[in-house]
């Protein structure tokens, strides 16, 4: 397979996951509105918002890092997605999967947040700084159980390659990690609650107290870029979780079904629960999920 062919299909799959991630975002707004007894915005509202933000006539800057913040963020999103094989056994939707891609993907999940922290810091708004410090603290906390569950998976399957992990889960749903290693899946799903930043771990964007968190100063096409990344990053995380824990997908329809229900897990939890404070969420992540993760690692190490 030539590299040009790979790049071409990688961009196509990037477009697919962007549209799907933004549609999921729209569905989430609709679901939250329905839970609150409202009609809610249309499902395609995120697309309109992105068009509008990019069509703004003026934009200002606060410096070089301010420009680079959204660029890092979207680079983190695309980077995460580019190393995940999307469809198992497909020549077209396997992106740039390589033998150690689990490590690379875990690095890229962190990367965007760090870049965003630098950019939002240069914006100079105090709320950005507060939100960034909260976000990084919470992120460090939920990375611990997530890393433990991935380590448990690596010990279980003996490989660092996502494609091989997916291959080992083929042949009936009872071979999914969900059933062969339930402790690691519970740990990872709890840390996904923190990753998606819905309630009860929404203190980073906390719309009531520190308006919308890190992107307080971002506007116009910067905000459009961040909103696009929200689609890409959500899609990439969901595809990663589907691959690691729910047996992957062999066609786009199954991918949509599985990612939708994985996403809905955190959305339903978010619609039903109030918010943790930062220190509470850190304490939570570092106790129960971490203990579960350690147990699952120990189970598969010996």
């Amino acid at each position: 397979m030539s590299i040009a062919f790979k790049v071409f299909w990688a961009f196509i799959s990037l477009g697919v996951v962007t549209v799907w991630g933004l549609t999921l975002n729209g569905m989430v707004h609709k679901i939250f509105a329905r839970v609150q007894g409202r009609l809610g915005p249309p499902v395609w509202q995120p697309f309109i918002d992105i068009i509008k933000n990019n069509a703004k006539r003026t934009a200002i800057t606060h410096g070089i890092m301010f420009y680079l913040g959204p660029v890092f963020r979207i680079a983190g999103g695309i980077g995460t997605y580019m190393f995940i094989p999307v469809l198992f056994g497909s020549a077209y939707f396997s992106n740039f999967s390589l033998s150690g891609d689990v490590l690379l993907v875990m690095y890229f999940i962190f990367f965007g947040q760090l870049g965003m922290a630098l950019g939002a810091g240069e914006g100079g708004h105090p709320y950005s700084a507060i939100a960034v410090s909260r976000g990084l603290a919470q992120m460090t906390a939920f990375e611990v159980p997530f890393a433990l569950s991935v380590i448990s998976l690596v010990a279980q399957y003996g490989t660092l390659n996502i494609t091989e992990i997916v291959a080992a889960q083929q042949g009936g749903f009872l071979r999914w990690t969900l059933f062969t290693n339930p402790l690691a899946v519970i740990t990872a799903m709890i840390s996904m609650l923190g990753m998606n930043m819905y309630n009860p771990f929404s203190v980073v964007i906390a719309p009531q107290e520190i308006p919308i968190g890190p992107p307080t100063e971002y506007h116009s096409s910067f905000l459009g870029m961040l909103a696009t990344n929200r689609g890409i990053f959500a899609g990439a995380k969901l595809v990663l979780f589907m691959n690691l824990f729910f047996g992957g997908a062999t066609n786009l329809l199954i991918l949509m079904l599985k990612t939708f229900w994985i996403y809905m897990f955190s959305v339903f939890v978010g619609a039903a629960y109030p918010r943790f404070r930062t220190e509470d969420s850190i304490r939570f992540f570092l106790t129960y999920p971490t203990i579960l993760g350690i147990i699952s690692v120990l189970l598969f190490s010996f």
Partner: protein
Amino acid sequence: MKDDDIKNDSNLTVEVSQTPIADYPDWRKDDKSLTNAGLSEEEQDWFCDARPQPAKKSWQIMENFFNWARSNSLWILAFGTGCGAIELRPLVTARYDISRLGMQPRPTPRQASVFMIGGYVSIKTLKRIVRSYEQMQGPKFVVAVCSCAINGGMYWDSYNTVKRIDEYIPVDVYVTGCMPRPEAVLAGFSKLKELIKAGKAEGQNLYAEKFDWYKENQKSVIKDWNMPDYNW
């Protein structure tokens, strides 16, 4: 502003900034940039001294498409300036639910596109309104709610309330009433959507064209002008 001719001529573009050109040093004679006179020396570096320019429009077909997107994604600046801001709260509840129209309150002026003036505007509030309005990124729209914003309302002889908000920032839609019901505010917003779709809501360009006139009006009531002339 006291001059009735200036007040009545809506197409006026005044070329006078607050310091007469003759008083500038030689190297600034041709320079039309702002002086930011209210600020101290070191603070002047923090703010933009470029005069706002009327934004160029793209092709008509693209502009129509963008206007459709703008009208369907109105983000309101959640800055309650008077008692009419109370009417903004019922709008986001289940009964009226502006989110089905693609509208949402946005807590920072940088990301908002609609400024809702909620009623009477005192001088102290006017300073904040001007600053917030100038921090919004264009195209930006203003909806003025309540009769106080239109002609002073019950504060018609108050010493501290401006009578016409459209002399200080350009206003697209007025909603009358003291206070208007949420239905009336919603009707005002749908009027604004029609204006945007028709390409008539060009308040940002109006502000840039008549910048000196607006600044003169603002400075005539804000006596301690201790903020930059343009809040970038």
